[in-house]
């Protein structure tokens, strides 16, 4: 018994700049694998966010655009409307999408743009040095909440997937994680489904991925995985939150 495993073609040979144990690498690989399996590498355009994934155009072998902070859905809308034959996806973190880019993503989802968004939720601003994000867990310590997130002062973490699911426009919205191999397989299926909905021209598709940030959480990669499982997953339940068939 045995399996083979190789780097997907859509991923370049470049070594990533991410910290050890950062799950961005896993999500990059899943996106690349899905694009290879669907055979759409020649007509895919990614829109990179501002955040840790700002240099992600180095790691893929298809076209990329870099957008202003939080404006990736707006840029993707423009690309998709001018060239409807292209497959356009945005890849955004929680500081980018849930804070600065909140209005862009809500309106892109509400217009039902035929784009795909991969939303990486690691409960903290990564690149800028671990500040509190809208998705930071209650009592979680960050550099701007040194005594823990005070929900009396700044409110509860935003569940972006549920928020977007409340819109009346058709959409595919799912939340998955990549902390263990079984979750990684499910996350890949969700990403593939999201791209498939776009290929079919059905609806806006959105996959939230609960991720880890060992460096800014101040944990080892292995501890970070456990922390995400114990603290984040109960608040951010996994699964399909909205499908165009049901709504």
């Amino acid at each position: 018994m045995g399996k083979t495993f190789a780097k997907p073609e859509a991923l370049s040979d470049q070594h990533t700049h991410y910290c050890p144990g950062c799950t961005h690498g896993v999500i990059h690989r899943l996106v690349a694998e899905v694009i290879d399996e669907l055979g759409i590498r020649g007509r895919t355009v990614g829109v990179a966010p501002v955040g840790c994934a700002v240099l992600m155009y180095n790691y893929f072998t298809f076209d990329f655009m870099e957008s202003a902070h939080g404006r990736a859905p707006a840029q993707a809308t423009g690309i998709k409307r001018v060239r409807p034959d292209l497959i356009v996806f945005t890849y955004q973190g929680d500081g980018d999408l849930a804070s600065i880019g909140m209005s862009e993503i809500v309106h892109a989802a509400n217009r039902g743009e035929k784009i795909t968004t991969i939303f990486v939720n690691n409960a903290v601003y990564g690149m800028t040095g671990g500040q509190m994000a809208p998705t930071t867990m209650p009592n979680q310590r960050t550099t701007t909440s040194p005594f823990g997130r005070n929900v009396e002062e700044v409110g509860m973490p935003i569940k972006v997937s549920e928020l977007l699911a409340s819109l009346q426009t058709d959409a595919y919205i799912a939340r998955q994680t990549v902390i263990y191999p079984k979750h990684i397989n499910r996350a890949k299926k969700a990403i593939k489904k999201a791209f498939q909905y776009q290929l079919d021209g059905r609806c806006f598709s959105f996959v939230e991925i609960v991720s880890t940030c060992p460096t800014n959480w101040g944990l080892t990669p292995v501890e970070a995985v456990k922390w995400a499982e114990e603290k984040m997953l109960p608040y951010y339940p996994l699964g399909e939150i909205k499908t165009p068939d049901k709504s």
Partner: protein
Amino acid sequence: MAFMHVIDSDRCKGCGLCVTICPKKVLEISEQVNTKGYFPAFQARPEDCIKCALCCTMCPDVAVTITASEDAGDPQQAASTEENDG
């Protein structure tokens, strides 16, 4: 069909996620530093490896690959190559 488990020690950042995920406890973190200054994972007990590819699935840096060759090959030789890669 011969399967070969290879860890690219220069891609590896030594996060240790593969070490905890391995069902057969094959992997360990090396004492030797790689070109980027990390301590990479290596196959300490390659004979126990069942090529389940869980480490490949978990690795954030795509440092672990498993290749298959049609010819059965010499298992001894394959094992020594794996050690060198670690």
